[in-house]
């Protein structure tokens, strides 16, 4: 039996999912446009006072990122489930957790990373300073992968259920609260002039914890869902 190296396995899976995403670009664009629209609605709703907008910018951008990542979660496993490729993945003689990790990483690259790249533009719209935009990017870079990983557990558990899309949000959103608190907190800290390192460290810690546990839990959940 040929054992693939873990890196080889990761790269096959990530490349596959990226190619699939590129051939179904509409899905990727939808998430991004949703993010932009939600963030842009706030100034229209609450009025154009620059001070208020500057203060609420971190929270608004983070909540919008959270909602946008929920929107794309449904696609993480459902397409593979429907055409039977997920079944075959469970039969791959390699670690399922690594396969799941690869899927999550690929999913983040097409649904989380574009949000991070788009965030500075939206930050300018809220008159954020360059320094706070910088912190926002770092916080999003640390936080959005965690959101994808926590979301993957929910997506795997609700696989094949009717109305799974709404259910997965109910399951996952409460679990994402810590990421939201520390992510938005980091940017607020830089605005109010206090230290950001504690917030970013906690975000990093959450990411490491999610990286260690969620692929394994997701793999278990997938096996249960396939029964």
């Amino acid at each position, binding site marked *: 039996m*040929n054992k*693939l190296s873990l890196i080889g396995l990761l790269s096959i899976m990530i490349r596959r999912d990226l190619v699939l995403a590129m051939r179904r670009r509409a899905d990727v664009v939808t998430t991004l446009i949703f993010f932009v629209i939600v963030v842009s609605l706030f100034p229209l709703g609450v009025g154009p006072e620059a001070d208020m907008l500057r203060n609420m910018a971190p929270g608004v951008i983070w909540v919008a990122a959270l909602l946008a990542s929920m929107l794309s979660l449904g696609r993480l496993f459902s397409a593979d489930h429907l055409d*039977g490729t997920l079944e075959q993945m469970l039969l791959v003689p390699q670690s399922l957790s690594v396969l799941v990790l690869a899927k999550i990483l690929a999913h983040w690259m097409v649904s989380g990373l574009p949000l991070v790249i788009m965030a500075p533009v939206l930050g300018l719209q809220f008159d954020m300073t360059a320094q706070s935009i910088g912190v926002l990017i770092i916080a999003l870079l640390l936080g959005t992968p965690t959101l994808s990983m926590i979301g993957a557990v929910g997506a795997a558990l609700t696989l094949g259920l009717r109305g799974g899309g709404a259910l997965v949000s109910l399951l996952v959103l409460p679990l994402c609260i810590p990421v939201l608190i520390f992510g938005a907190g980091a940017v607020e800290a830089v605005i109010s002039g206090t230290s950001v390192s504690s917030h970013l460290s906690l975000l990093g810690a959450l990411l490491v914890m999610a990286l260690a546990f969620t692929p394994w839990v997701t793999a278990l959940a997938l096996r249960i869902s396939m029964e």
Partner: protein
Amino acid sequence: MLEISNLACSRGDHLLFSGLNFSLSPGELLQVQGANGSGKTSLLRTLCGFIMPDTGEILWHGQNIRELGDQFYAEIIYLGHLNAIKDELNALENLRIGAGLAGCKMDDKQVIAALRRLGLRGRETLPVKVLSQGQRRRVALARLLLSNASLWILDEPLTALDVGAVELMQELISEHLVNNGMVIYTTHQPLEVVGVATRRLALT
């Protein structure tokens, strides 16, 4: 060698089968028969380890498949009702990824040869979504040629296939059996392999 002893399986509250015993040695062919809903697919999925049996055990070379895990998965190939191919990818990419994940190093020549053998000459680089149902099934069947699994578990392999492809399938199975492979399949169509006595297992 696959041994099944006292296997029982239920879906929901409904008992599909119980007390099932059989074994399969290299070079043997087993057809699972039964009416719709008698549990053929569930039996095959239990053999793949997707479904936990209520009682009984499944042994592969004397060891429980639950304990073997990856070692067992490396020796089986499962073809389900779903073709497990991606519409957005072409046949070549689909098979290359499938073989890659299974740990087989494949070059494009081997994959193309397998596709041609299944009558898909000229369709290798078309997106699978433009192929017909029968052609998609042929792409899925080409996986059999690219794997070195010894146990083939085929759930209705002949769905959507034309007469020529059914004959080809008989040929593939017979080659696999000659190489000391094992095949378990379900079908509602006649599938006779020359020179091999098909064993039958009836589920009621």
